[in-house]
């Protein structure tokens, strides 16, 4: 150890670090520390010149250890390990000190920041001396991928991977894939028919030899790691035998039980107790909704069984548990519409002619409950005036502080559709700001201005049926401050549409936990890096795509779906990936055979040998979590790259200036 030769590099990160930390002082000081043979500061260590500096020094000074003090290891640990490796040094003989996120960004106090930088550098030096050369673990990548969620994000990713020749398991919990896009009528800004562009993709998924579609299914359990996950999927009982069903729809027609369809029809229409959400559903097989089926509820009926020409109905069918093996996972679980009942002053649920945006999508859809006619709740009357209220549940600290990003555009789309179907009707859009960044989006807004939509700048205060003045009787009155003229206005209309925002799925946190991900404060999945790595997550091998990561429209969702697929395709094509060799190891001589560690391991990676009365870690299963290391009463378990010696030295290092003889006293004097 005494002969170790350490090189220390302090990064300025432009002014990110150098603006707060006296980097030159830290470098000078580092050069005076034992074992250090060279210490430098440099503007951008991650640049190719910065890396070359390290490589050159390793060769010239015969460095045996390298420390870089810069940003988070999440950003550049790989970069600097690569530099070491290129210069012939084992990459694990490198250590990184984070003096940006953990130091310069956290304070404006230059003196304290410099002092802390020294402590962090000292810790890294002390630790790196005890590092051992390690070889990365090689993991073979299973070329199959699990995709959870069959909206447009999941569909896109599935087709990309399948077309690249890799197998995909697509798990969708509803009876059909399609997600929200299947509910939409036209899509902004080009107004192409949503079904026309979506259905072919759904059919392609259905027929693709490389895609196993598991609809009406949910993931129960996930085990393993990048390259080798084992996933348990619950295939819920459809009560329809898929092999026999031809999708003729006779059962649906005959079923006597009508139910309000709160899912696909957004509450605006009905379905039967045995149903397919919509005619183009993929797969084509119906399901029995046992909560409403007369046979399941009162033990009478069996009409569908009687009329099914192929005998495909099976009331006894049970849920099935399937175990599948995949190398990577994409979560594409989408969003949920904000429930405007939470804003009582907008009257949804109380005032009949207040509709949600999804209800309106179903209403204008030719295949929807009204056949595409825009009518009031009575199903007949055409409105003469329509108010569209933006930002319902969005940009509001009482609900969701964020902007839902798509509502301005779909509200403009709605205005256009009303003009198109009811040319006589007046349309009012109430907005705080019109947000139309996107190709062709601002132009679409301009088009609506020309179509004669009334734009009133002001967030709606309330919608009421309490008439106050003549002209208001029998109408819904939208009360608002028209902020451009600074006056309160009451605008009587026949119909109100609430442009509700996008929210994370209610079970997002559970799902995240199952897959080892994090959720942000709003429940959206957290990406590895918001700019540079938006589809990866902190868990290797688990990717995210679409609105489960945050509100976005279809073009952005599709781009993410394809991006996640591309990331996985590149991993698969590498066949093997290298993983951190951070694994536990049991010293058989020290093991007392107490078996405390056996049950503790969350990955069941520890076996007990009865004959020798010792435990052993199966390296291939170990994830390096360290639970057993901490628990072993005999101190028999060590973890590579996290040995006691390494950690204790690191702690000693960080406390260098608080020991009695340290510089701390000098600083205080």
């Amino acid at each position, binding site marked *: 150890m005494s002969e170790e030769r350490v090189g220390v590099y302090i990064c300025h990160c432009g002014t990110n670090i150098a603006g707060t930390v006296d980097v030159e002082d830290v470098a000078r000081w580092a050069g005076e520390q034992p074992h250090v043979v060279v210490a430098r500061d440099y503007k951008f260590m991650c640049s190719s010149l910065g890396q070359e500096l390290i490589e050159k020094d390793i060769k010239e000074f015969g460095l045996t250890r390298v420390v870089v003090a810069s940003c988070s290891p999440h950003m550049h640990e790989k970069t600097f390990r690569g530099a070491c490796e290129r210069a012939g040094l084992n990459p694990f003989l490198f250590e990184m000190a984070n003096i940006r996120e953990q130091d310069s960004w956290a304070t404006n106090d230059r003196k304290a920041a410099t002092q802390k930088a020294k402590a962090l550098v000292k810790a890294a030096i002390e630790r790196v001396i005890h590092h051992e050369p390690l070889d990365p673990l090689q993991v073979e990548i299973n070329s199959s991928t699990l995709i959870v969620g069959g909206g447009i994000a999941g569909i896109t990713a599935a087709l990309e991977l399948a077309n690249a020749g890799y197998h995909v398991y697509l798990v969708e919990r509803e009876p059909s894939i399609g997600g929200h896009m299947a509910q939409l009528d036209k899509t902004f800004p080009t107004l192409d028919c949503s079904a026309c562009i979506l259905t072919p993709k759904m059919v392609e998924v259905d027929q693709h030899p490389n895609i196993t579609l598991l609809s009406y299914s949910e993931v129960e359990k996930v085990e393993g790691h990048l390259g080798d996950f084992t996933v348990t999927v619950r295939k819920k009982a459809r009560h329809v035998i898929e092999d026999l069903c031809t999708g003729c729809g006779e059962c649906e027609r005959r079923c006597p039980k009508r139910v309000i369809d709160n899912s696909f029809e957004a509450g605006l229409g009905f379905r039967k107790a045995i149903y397919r959400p919509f005619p183009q559903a993929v797969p084509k097989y119906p399901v029995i909704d046992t909560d409403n089926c007369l046979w399941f509820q009162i033990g009478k009926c069996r009409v569908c069984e009687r009329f099914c020409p192929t005998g495909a109905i099976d009331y006894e069918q049970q849920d099935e548990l399937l175990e599948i093996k995949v190398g990577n996972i994409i979560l594409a679980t989408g969003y949920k519409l904000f429930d405007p*009942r939470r804003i009582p002053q907008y009257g949804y649920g109380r005032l009949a002619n207040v509709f949600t945006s999804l209800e309106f999508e179903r209403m204008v859809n030719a295949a929807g409950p*009204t056949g595409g006619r825009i009518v009031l709740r009575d*199903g007949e009357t055409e409105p003469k005036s329509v108010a569209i209220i933006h930002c319902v549940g969005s940009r509001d600290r009482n609900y969701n502080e964020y902007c839902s990003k798509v509502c301005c555009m779909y509200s403009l789309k709605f205005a256009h559709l009303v003009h198109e179907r009811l040319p006589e009707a007046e349309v009012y859009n109430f907005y705080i700001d019109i947000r139309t960044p996107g190709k062709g989006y601002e132009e679409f807004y301009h088009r609506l201005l020309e179509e004669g939509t009334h734009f009133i700048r002001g967030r709606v205060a309330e919608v*009421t049926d*309490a008439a106050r003045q003549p002209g208001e009787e029998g109408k819904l009155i939208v009360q608002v401050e028209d902020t451009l003229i600074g006056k309160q206005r009451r605008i009587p209309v026949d119909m109100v549409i609430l442009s509700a925002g996008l929210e994370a799925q209610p079970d997002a946190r559970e799902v995240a936990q199952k897959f080892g991900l994090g959720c942000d404060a709003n429940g959206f999945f957290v990406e590895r890096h918001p700019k540079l790595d938006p589809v990866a997550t902190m868990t290797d091998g688990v990717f995210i795509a679409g609105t489960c990561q945050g509100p976005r429209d279809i073009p952005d969702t599709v781009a993410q779906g394809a991006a996640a697929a591309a990331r996985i395709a590149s991993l698969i094509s590498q066949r093997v990936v290298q993983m951190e060799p951070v694994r536990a190891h049991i010293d058989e001589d020290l093991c007392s055979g107490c078996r405390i560690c056996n049950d503790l391991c969350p990955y069941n990676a520890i076996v007990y040998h009865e004959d020798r009365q010792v435990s052993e870690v199966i390296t291939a299963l170990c994830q390096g979590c360290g639970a057993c290391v901490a628990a072993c009463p005999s101190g028999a378990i060590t973890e590579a790259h996290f040995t006691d010696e390494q950690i204790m030295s690191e702690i000693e290092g960080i406390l260098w200036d608080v020991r009695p003889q340290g510089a701390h006293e000098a600083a205080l004097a």
Partner: protein
Amino acid sequence: MRYGYYPGCSLERNAIAYHQSAVAVAPQLGIELNEIDDWNCCGATEYSSIDLIPAYALIARNLALAEQQQDENGGQLVAPCSACFLNLSKADHYMAEAPDLAEKVNDALSAGGLHYDPGSIQVRHLLDVIVNDVGYDAIKAKVSKPLSGLRVAPYYGCLIVRPGYQAFDDPEYPTSLDKLMRVLGAEVVDYPLKTHCCGGHMTQISRPTALELIRRLLKNAADYEADAIVTVCPMCQLNLDAFQADVNRFFGTDFHIPVLYFTQLIGVALNISPVELGFGKEFVDARPALDKIGTGSPPTGRRRRSREKGLPMPTMSEEG
């Protein structure tokens, strides 16, 4: 259940009926109200317009007294007046949130030998105590004269639900008074303006503004054919009741809607005599409304518009 009781100035005089009915029903509901000794006016909405620290000191004297006398009332202070309820809970809230404010207020209180620790008294509205501490079931069990046949518009006004320093119901669409009235057997109108403003002191500042605010409330209740408006606040009662004739004169309308305190209607349902409940002090005669009681059959469950035709209506979560 014992509580400190802060009647507030209105209940001494103009809202004497509120006080009488509250005091009459309380023991029957198992509530013991111990009036805070030597309480002072909370300043209504006036003092805060003039001077901040004195306004808070004025309110805080009451909190300090309540804290001193809390052995009898378990740290709970009940106000039947919504403005008092707001002021008392607001002072407690901001003294806790802004320590420098608390320090100044306590400095002022010390001139009178008093001190108040923010958070030590929980301020409650009488309605909150009745529906949540006594509870609907217990009240239901005591009803001996159901209010069947009486259509009431439950009127909450502002300060009982907003801004909600001691929130117990929704600020926009509260339902506790609706439920209470239903439990008493009355038919409840879904009154859209139930949390709109009665104008407060506006009658004194700008009559046309005030009368218009009152007119809206009366009109809406009349549109829904309510026999009576039920209130939880003396200011609301005064505005809707005493100014009803002014509204009629000013707008040429002809409203005759009695405005009653919720405690009065509880009293009726518990078969307490009208005199004890302070009836007869209202400007708009309550007798025609009270005469309807017992004429209708109690409503069976909730009215649900069944729609055979047309599009399905979104369902609201049940409000019990």
